[in-house]
């Protein structure tokens, strides 16, 4: 690994100035599960690592009546251990339980997963399904971005020079809301998604009609893909396998994957439909309050 300076600011302002001092050879560090691995491989030309985990705002989970805010550096383990998050956002736990193994979850954060901006990131389709807002700080002050607009290319995102992610805000789910994230991997753990699918629905009070829906895919485009047309097609439709199949086909059409060592174009197109449909089923079951643990387990290979 190349020689580095390490700084651990105690608040957002200190972090802003540390990053400003380091310029484009400084990089923020959260869980480090991507960053340190890349440093080990010698892939990054960096001089300074700015560890954000001493900043209380980035390490906090706070719940208000409108939203849940998770600091960008909060580890998956911390999220998984938070009972109120588990209860209110079961779909979020789908992702935080899937990122790496247990020991990766001890460090990896949603903010890091997002800022690494891999097209295959396991949290991002889920964040899109949850309509998350990204709160960013930087030398020019603070700003917010919808999560579906955050990533711009593989490994690239909207963060400008000296900017970093502070927190992710999840709007409080409306009544009859359900969401789910599924991915397909060859093993049952410790893999990069061949395809990932996040879905959320809001059902009518009788829980037989889909009022609105959001569908998002991972690993089928240069960035995690918000498939708005799939959600739009579901809005106002009755809950039925046919409806879901239509959305699944739209997701498949939207997918524009490449063939690489982890998957082929036909396989990824096909899985886009399969996983969308399966994720929607679970989201609907959750919205209806039906148990889905068994199916979830099987689909995620935890069965």
């Amino acid at each position, binding site marked *: 690994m190349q020689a580095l300076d*390490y700084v651990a600011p105690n608040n957002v302002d200190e972090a802003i100035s540390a990053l400003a001092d380091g310029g484009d050879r400084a990089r923020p560090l959260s869980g480090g599960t991507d960053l*340190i*691995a890349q*440093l080990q491989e010698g892939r990054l030309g960096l001089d300074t690592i700015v560890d954000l985990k001493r900043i209380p705002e980035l390490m906090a989970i706070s719940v208000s009546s409108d939203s849940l805010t998770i600091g960008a550096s909060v580890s998956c383990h911390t999220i998984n251990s938070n009972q109120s998050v588990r209860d209110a956002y079961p779909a979020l736990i789908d992702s935080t339980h899937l990122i790496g*193994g*247990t020991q*990766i979850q*001890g460090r990896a954060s949603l903010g890091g997963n997002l800022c690494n901006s891999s097209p295959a990131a396991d949290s991002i389709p889920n964040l899109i399904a949850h309509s998350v807002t990204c709160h960013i700080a930087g030398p020019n002050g603070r700003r917010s971005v919808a999560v579906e607009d955050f990533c711009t290319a593989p490994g690239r995102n909207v963060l400008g020079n000296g900017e970093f992610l502070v927190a992710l805000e999840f709007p409080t789910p409306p009544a009859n809301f359900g969401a789910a994230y599924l991915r397909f991997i060859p093993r049952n753990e410790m893999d990069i998604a061949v395809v990932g699918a996040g879905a959320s629905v809001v059902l009518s009070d009788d829980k037989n009609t889909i009022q609105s829906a959001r569908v998002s895919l991972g690993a089928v485009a240069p960035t995690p893909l918000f498939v708005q047309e799939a959600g739009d097609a579901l809005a106002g439709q009755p809950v039925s396998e046919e409806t879901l199949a239509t959305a699944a086909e739209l997701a498949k059409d939207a997918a524009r994957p490449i063939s690489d060592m982890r998957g082929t174009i036909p396989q990824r197109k096909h899985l886009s439909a399969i996983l969308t449909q399966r994720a929607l089923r679970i989201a609907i079951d959750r919205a209806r309050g039906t148990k889905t643990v068994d199916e979830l387990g099987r689909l995620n290979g*935890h069965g």
Partner: protein
Amino acid sequence: MAKKIAVETTLNGEETVFLCEPRQTLLEALRDNLGLIGSKEGCGNGNCGACNVLLDGVLVNSCLVLAPEIEGRSVVTIEGIAEDGQLHPLQQKFLEHASLQCGICTPGFIVSSKALLDDNPSPSEHDVRLWLAGNLCRCTGYDKIVRAVLDVAEGDA
């Protein structure tokens, strides 16, 4: 050569100060700077679990932690699992069940299993397999490892 910095930490229950370069991982610092060779490097990028340690009680890959990050924190390694000169029940059961063949992955498995039982004292077989999925073993097929962990869990219950 890069400048070294001093890090104060609690290592296996002892207040410890050591010097490291900021680019050193916790794994490298443990092994080369502190002489604790029990944490092993199998992959260097978080995919095998042989270097697992507890950081403030949470299971992490020490190859994916920079040494300066542990300033003011507590680290428990395989060397800190046995207490008062007695093998931890997991260590004892790994021996009795022949849960190790070459033994290189064993420290990581024992640290991970301890974290599991701290979190969930009575896991199912599935719970054990899921929790340990980040620890690779190439010798045993995991059968005897899972049995040892379940045996300890049952013993605690």
